[in-house]
C-alpha cells in the first residue's frame, strides 16, 4: 500500500500542468540552444575554408585545403562550389579533412566566389582581385586569411635582400583560454617550385605581451621553441596548447635554404568557448529564460495550493487520512521537485541541442553552475509563491504573486538603477549594486550563476559584491523562511 503522503505527492506531481511545465523547460532549452547557435555562428561560422590554389599546368589548378568548423575541427564531409556570375555553379567538389583536388583553371577564373557547405553551416568567400594573379605568381590563397609572411620581396619585415622562396601563412583558432586549447592551421607554397609541396621543419614558442609585430630574427633568444612537426604539404593542421602567461605565439619554419617566422598575438582573441559561454549565460541567453520561467512556478503554486484552498476543495481532501502538514509538504515538494528537475532538463536540452547544432556544448562545470543557479532561483520563487498561495486570501493570490513576479523578474534592474541614483553612488556603482541587490531577490541565484560563468571567460566585469556563497545563503534563507512562514500561517487557518 502506498502511504497516503506519497500518494498525495504523486498526484500533485503527475498533473497535466506539472508535466507541461517540464515540457516547457525542455522546449525552452532547445529554443535557447537555437538562440545561442544563431548568435554564436555569426561570430564563429560553422563552415570555413583555408586553402591555397596552385597552378598545376595544363590549364588546371590544384586546390589544397581544409574545411573546418567554428572550433577549428576539420570537417569530414563538405562541398566546395565555384560560383560564377548570376549564381551559376561552375563546379561542385566534395572534400573532406585535408584535401587536394584539381579544377580547370578556366572555372576558377570565371568564378566570383567559393561557397563552402557542411552539414551544419554555409559560408561564402569572395574571390578578390584578378584570379589571373595565379598565372603570374603561380598560386593564390583561398578562404580565410591568416598571418602571412614572404608573399613578395620587399614586404614589411622581410629584408630586401631576401628573395622570397616560401609563401607561409598561419592561422590560429583559440578554443579555450582556460585550457589553452588551440588549433593551428598552416598553408605554404614553395615559391621556387609551386608544383612540389614545401618541406620545412616547424617549431613554435611563446612570447610575453607587448610584442606586436613579433620578435625579429636574432631576438628570439628568450623564446623557448618546441618542435611542431615537419611540414611537407601545402596545408597542415595542428592542435597546440597556448599558455595563459604569454600572449604571442611565434611559429618558426626552416628547411633547405628558407627560414622565417610569423607571430600571432592571441591574448586579444575571444576564445570560441568564451564566446559561446558568453552567449549562453548572457542577457539574451539563460537570463532571458530565467525571466519568464517564474511564471510557471507562480502558476504551479496556484494550481497546487491557492486554487483548491480558495475553492474549498482542499478541505475535502484534508478529511482523508492526511494532516495539514502532509498536504502542505507534499504539494510543496511536487512543485519544488519541478523547480529542481526543470532547470536540469532545460540545461540538458540546451546542451544536447547545441551538441547537435554545433557539435560541441558548454563544459560540465559551467552547466552545473548555471543549473544550480536556476534551480535555486526557481525553488526560491516557487516557495515564495507557495507561501502566498497557502497563506494569503486565496482571491488575492494571483494579483499579489504577479505583482511580485513583475518586481523581481522584470523591474529588478530598474530598481537597482533607482537605488544607485537615490544613493547618489554614480553610474559606476551600478554593476556592484546590481549584484548586491540580487540577494534580496528570490531569483538572485540565477543572475549570480550567470555572472560566475561569464566572469570565468572574462565576458563580464568583476563585481566585488557577487559571491556564490552569499547567493547560496540568501537562496536558502528565501526558501526556508517562506516555507516556514507559509506553513505556520497555513496550519492555523480556519
Amino acid at each position, binding site marked *: 500500500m502506498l502511504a*497516503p503522503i506519497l*500518494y498525495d505527492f504523486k498526484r500533485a506531481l503527475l498533473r497535466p500542468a506539472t508535466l507541461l511545465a517540464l515540457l516547457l523547460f525542455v522546449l525552452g532549452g532547445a529554443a535557447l540552444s537555437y538562440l545561442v547557435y544563431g548568435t554564436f555562428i555569426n561570430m564563429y561560422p560553422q563552415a570555413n575554408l583555408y586553402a591555397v590554389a596552385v597552378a598545376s599546368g595544363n590549364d588546371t589548378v590544384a586546390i589544397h585545403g581544409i574545411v573546418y568548423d567554428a572550433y577549428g575541427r576539420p570537417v569530414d564531409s563538405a562541398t566546395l562550389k565555384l560560383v560564377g556570375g548570376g549564381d551559376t555553379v561552375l563546379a561542385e567538389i566534395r572534400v573532406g579533412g585535408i584535401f587536394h583536388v584539381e579544377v580547370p583553371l578556366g572555372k576558377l577564373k570565371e568564378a566570383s566566389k567559393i561557397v563552402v557547405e557542411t552539414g551544419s553551416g554555409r559560408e561564402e568567400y569572395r574571390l578578390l582581385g584578378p584570379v589571373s594573379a595565379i598565372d603570374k605568381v603561380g598560386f593564390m590563397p583561398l578562404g580565410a586569411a591568416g598571418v602571412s609572411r614572404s608573399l613578395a620581396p620587399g614586404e614589411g619585415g622581410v629584408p630586401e635582400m631576401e628573395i622570397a622562396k616560401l609563401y607561409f601563412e598561419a592561422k590560429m583558432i583559440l578554443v579555450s583560454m582556460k585550457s589553452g586549447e588551440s588549433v593551428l592551421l598552416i598553408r605554404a607554397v614553395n615559391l621556387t617550385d609551386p608544383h612540389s609541396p614545401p618541406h620545412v621543419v616547424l617549431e613554435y614558442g611563446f612570447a610575453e605581451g607587448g610584442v606586436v609585430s613579433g620578435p625579429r630574427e636574432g631576438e628570439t633568444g628568450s623564446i623557448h621553441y618546441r618542435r611542431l612537426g615537419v611540414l611537407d604539404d601545402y596545408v597542415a593542421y595542428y592542435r597546440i596548447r597556448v599558455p595563459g602567461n604569454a600572449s604571442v605565439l611565434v611559429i618558426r619554419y626552416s628547411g633547405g635554404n628558407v627560414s622565417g617566422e610569423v607571430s600571432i598575438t592571441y591574448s586579444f582573441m575571444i576564445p570560441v568557448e568564451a564566446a559561446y559561454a558568453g552567449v549562453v549565460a548572457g542577457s539574451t541567453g539563460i537570463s532571458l529564460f530565467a525571466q519568464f520561467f517564474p511564471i510557471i512556478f507562480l502558476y504551479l503554486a496556484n494550481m497546487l495550493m491557492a486554487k483548491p484552498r480558495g475553492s*474549498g*476543495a482542499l478541505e475535502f*481532501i484534508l*478529511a*482523508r*487520512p*492526511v494532516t495539514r502538514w502532509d498536504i502542505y509538504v507534499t504539494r510543496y515538494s511536487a512543485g519544488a521537485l519541478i523547480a529542481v528537475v526543470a532547470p536540469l532538463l532545460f540545461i540538458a536540452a540546451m546542451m544536447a541541442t547545441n551538441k547537435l547544432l554545433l557539435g560541441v556544448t558548454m563544459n560540465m562545470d559551467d552547466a552545473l553552475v548555471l543549473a544550480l543557479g536556476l534551480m535555486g532561483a526557481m525553488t526560491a520563487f516557487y516557495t515564495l509563491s507557495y507561501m502566498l498561495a497557502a497563506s494569503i486570501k486565496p482571491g488575492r493570490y494571483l494579483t499579489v504573486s504577479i505583482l511580485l513576479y513583475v518586481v523581481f523578474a522584470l523591474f529588478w534592474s530598474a530598481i537597482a538603477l533607482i537605488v544607485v541614483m537615490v544613493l547618489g553612488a554614480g553610474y559606476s556603482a551600478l554593476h556592484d549594486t546590481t549584484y548586491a541587490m540580487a540577494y534580496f531577490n528570490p531569483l538572485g541565484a540565477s543572475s549570480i550563476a550567470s555572472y560566475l560563468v561569464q566572469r570565468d571567460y572574462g565576458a563580464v566585469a568583476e563585481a566585488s559584491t557577487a559571491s556564490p556563497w552569499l547567493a547560496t545563503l540568501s537562496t536558502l534563507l528565501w526558501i526556508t523562511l517562506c516555507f516556514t512562514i507559509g506553513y505556520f500561517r497555513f496550519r492555523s487557518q480556519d
Partner: protein
Amino acid sequence: MAIEFRDVTKYFGKKRVLENVSFTVEKGEVVGYVGLNGAGKTTTIRIGVGVLRPSSGDVLVEGYSVVREKRRASMHIGWVPEYPIFEQDFKALDYFVYLAGYYGISGGEARRLGRRLLEEVGLGDALDKKLAEYSQGMKKRFALAVSMINEPENYFFDEVLNGLDPQGIAFFRDLVLRLKRKGCAILFSSHILSEVENLADRVVFIHRGRIVAVHTMDEIKGMAKPALRIKVGRIDEGLMETLKSLGEPERKGRIIVLRNPSRSPDEILRILVEKGYPVEAMAPVEPSLEEVFFRIIGERR
C-alpha cells in the same frame, strides 16, 4: 464510545462559535445534532472530522485524537459536508479513484469500488460527468459514496437531507439504518428537529455554540404537548380568559390553538358551547416537535 467530543471550544478570530461542546455518539447509535442556522453545527462537525482545529478541547474517534492522531482517526471517519466542494475539472469516477488512493485503494480495485458505490447512491449514469456539472444534490450523493470508501465505523453527516430529492432522502434513511445495524456511530445534523425524528436515537441540541440539551427521541416525543385547533365564530376577551383556564391558548387569526389542554376535547367543547361561543370546528393537532425544539433552546418562534 465511538465518537467523543471533549470540551471543544472554537473561536473565529475574537468570535466564540463553540463553547465547551461535549457529547458522545456510541457504536450502533444514531445521534441527531439539532440547532438553528448559525448555531455551530457545521463548525462542530468540521472539527470532528479533523479539517478544522479546535481552539481548545479534542475529539476522539475510535479513541484517536483528531488533533494529534489525525491520520489514524481519519481512517475511521466518513464525512458528508453540508456543501461538498471538489476539484472541478475531474470526472466523478476519476476523482473517486483519486480520493480512494489516500486509503491505499488504487487502480482497478478503486474503479470497481467507485462504480459500485456511485451506482449505489444513484450516480450510476453520471460516472463520467465532470464534477463541475454536478448539482448540489449530486455532490451530496458523491460525498456520501466517498464517505464509505474505507467502510468507516463513524459517520458525520452535515445537513445531509438538505438538497436531496425524496428518492435521495429515502435512500439515506435506508443507508443510516443499515449502518446502524452494522454497529456504526452516526452523527447527523439538521436545523429541523422533525427531520431527525424517524432516525435518531438521541438528539443533541446546540444553541449559540453551546450544548443546551441531550434527549432520547422518546423523551422528546413525550415532551411534545398535544394541542387542539378550535375555530370559533366570535373571539373576545371572555373566550380567551375561559381558554386560559383550560390550557395555553394562542390566537392565529380566526383560529385558536390550545396547547396542553387540561380537559378532554369533548369537555372543552361542552364548556365553550355552554358559554355561548359558536364553535365551528375543533380538531386535535399532531404534537409539534418544533415546539419542543424551540422550548428546549429557550427561544420564541
